[in-house]
């Protein structure tokens, strides 16, 4: 007799044990586990419960700044330049140790080209000038008085996942490979509101945005984007911007490459042509195999990767697992995520966490019953503009791969990788990076 929650053959929706996402809705996953781990459940019986030591005494005293459990001290970012030597510093988000969709502020990825400036918000000024009727200067105090908006969006470095341009798989964890993307709730003033005030010359097409950091980083941004959804951000997940994220004010260009989201903004110049500044003329112009290069790539295209399970984790026994990951698109909202457990032979739809938001992280889940045999997991996302995350072969054909294997996962052999990430699971439950 089949009960409502029983797993049936019909619930297996793709090869190697991928189960219907509908099981998540009707609570059938407990049965999915029971079906295959019956022996384990009946094996060692649990001990009688005792009152634990920590429940008997008053705990430690609450402090002004909250503290996470000391047991979570290893949930930190990986640094590439911890001594602040005269070169760029990167800090990568540990997605394999996080869940949900928001990146906590102290774990948000960051890249600084010349350290974190110590800016006094009372003294900081933002000037807007160039092809305008009336140049203006704003104090932070004044900027704070404009009507504000709040939205979630990811920021991703144009070089995130760059190691996957390697011709051979790269044995590095998720944080090393995909740690240069994070997702937060940002609050600030729509740039269009401030630009309205200066009166832009109709012949203007671009703006040059510049930071007050030592490197005075500057990028050319089309006015089309500036007037569409750009925000002068003042708050990050509810609190004032982190110093390393651009305190007191940064530019947010939802969905566009991280480097353009200028931190410590002090000057916006309205112009009629792009400046070809260092970062757009060199770093963020990805080379193609024929020695041509893309210019003004800007958009971080539709992408996804599985966070659980992923490289470095181990499946200790066959049975039920949830496969979960992150999907996002700089061109819109995630509409669909498919997962494979057999290296792309068959695919099943994952459950997509709603409400989905434009240009923001979307978590996906799918139940899976691992039979203890080798498997290859991968995910593939589609956005509401019909953009599909490219399969590895298609991506490599257009964008190329390295001639030698990449040995440093923190290097940048190229920019803007958005193809698949595949995890190979062997019979021992160990996980490695593979190309499928």
């Amino acid at each position, binding site marked *: 007799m089949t009960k409502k929650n029983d797993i049936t053959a019909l619930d297996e929706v793709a090869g190697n044990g991928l189960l219907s996402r509908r099981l998540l809705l009707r609570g059938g996953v407990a049965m999915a586990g029971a079906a295959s781990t019956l022996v384990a459940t009946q094996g060692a019986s649990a001990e009688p419960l005792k009152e634990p030591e920590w429940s008997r005494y008053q705990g430690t005293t609450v402090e002004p700044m909250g503290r996470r459990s000391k047991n979570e001290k290893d949930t930190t970012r990986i640094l590439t330049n911890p001594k602040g030597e*005269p*070169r760029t510093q990167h800090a990568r988000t540990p997605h394999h140790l996080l869940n949900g969709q928001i990146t906590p502020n102290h774990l948000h990825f960051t890249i600084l080209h*010349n350290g974190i400036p110590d800016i006094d918000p009372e003294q900081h000024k933002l*000037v*807007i*000038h160039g092809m305008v009727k009336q*140049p*203006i*200067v*704003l*104090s932070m105090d*004044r*900027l704070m008085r*404009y*009507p504000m908006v709040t939205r979630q969006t990811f920021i991703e470095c144009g070089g995130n996942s760059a190691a996957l*341009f390697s011709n051979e798989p790269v044995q590095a964890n998720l944080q090393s490979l995909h740690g240069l993307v994070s997702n937060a709730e940002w609050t600030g003033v729509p740039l*269009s*509101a*401030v630009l*309205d*005030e*200066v009166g832009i010359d109709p012949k203007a*097409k671009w703006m*040059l945005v510049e930071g007050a950091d*030592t490197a*005075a980083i*500057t990028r050319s941004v*089309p006015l089309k*984007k500036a007037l569409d959804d750009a925000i002068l951000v003042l708050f990050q997940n509810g609190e004032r911007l982190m110093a390393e994220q651009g305190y007191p004010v940064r530019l947010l260009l939802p969905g566009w490459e991280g480097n353009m989201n200028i931190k410590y903004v*002090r*000057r916006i*110049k309205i*112009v009629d*042509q792009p*400046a*070809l*500044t*260092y970062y757009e*003329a*060199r770093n963020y*112009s*990805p*080379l*193609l*195999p*024929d*020695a*041509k*290069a*893309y*210019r*003004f*790539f*800007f*958009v971080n295209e539709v992408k996804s990767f599985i966070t659980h399970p992923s490289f470095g984790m181990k499946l200790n026994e066959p049975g039920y697992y949830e496969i979960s990951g992150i999907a996002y698109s700089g061109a819109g909202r995630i509409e669909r995520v498919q997962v494979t457990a057999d290296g792309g032979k068959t695919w099943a739809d994952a459950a997509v966490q709603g409400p989905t938001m434009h240009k923001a992280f979307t978590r996906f889940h799918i139940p899976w019953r691992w039979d203890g045999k080798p498997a290859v997991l991968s995910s593939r996302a589609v956005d509401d503009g019909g953009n599909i995350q490219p399969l590895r072969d298609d991506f490599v054909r257009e964008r*190329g791969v*390295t*001639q030698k294997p990449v040995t440093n996962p923190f290097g940048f*052999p*190229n920019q803007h990788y958005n193809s698949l990430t595949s995890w190979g699971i062997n019979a021992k439950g160990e996980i490695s990076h593979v190309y499928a």
Partner: protein
Amino acid sequence: MSMLEKISFAACVAVALSTSAMADDKNGLGTNVGLGQPITESDIKPWDITILPDGTNLPPGSGTAVVGAKLFLEKGCNACHGEGGTGGSNGAVITDIPLAGRGIEATKTIKNFWGSSTTVFDFIRRAMPWPAPRTLTDDEVYALTAFILEGNKLIPPGTVMDAKSLPQVKMPNKDGFIIKFPDRI
């Protein structure tokens, strides 16, 4: 509130009202709130270091490679870019490596990749030398730019770099780019 205070308060309100009445209120939220303080371009000048590829906003001044070579040593540029700019931990600024035939891993150099000579001037003035950016005079920036361009054989020996000559330097890879998303611009 004294009479004087009342009068000045009323005057402020009147000014505020007339300002907002003049402004376009496109989104209907009254976001054109007029909080920006007017400032003149001449007061912005000390911050305005933006250079455009056609030479717009290049400052007065000039320099040659001979002077630039001396500065390259004096300012410690060789610490990161090697002796004579030909190597070092942060990359050579004078080098002759081809772009073609090396796939996506080809080293992008000033000579084989950069599309505009003005980028050289802009980046030196903006971000170099690393420990003390924006301490070079405009003449010094022109001289260092001339040193790099001449070393890369992009200008004939002895060419003076200034606001007129710099944007005319032909960069070999100027047309090597494909605009990825033209509709976004």
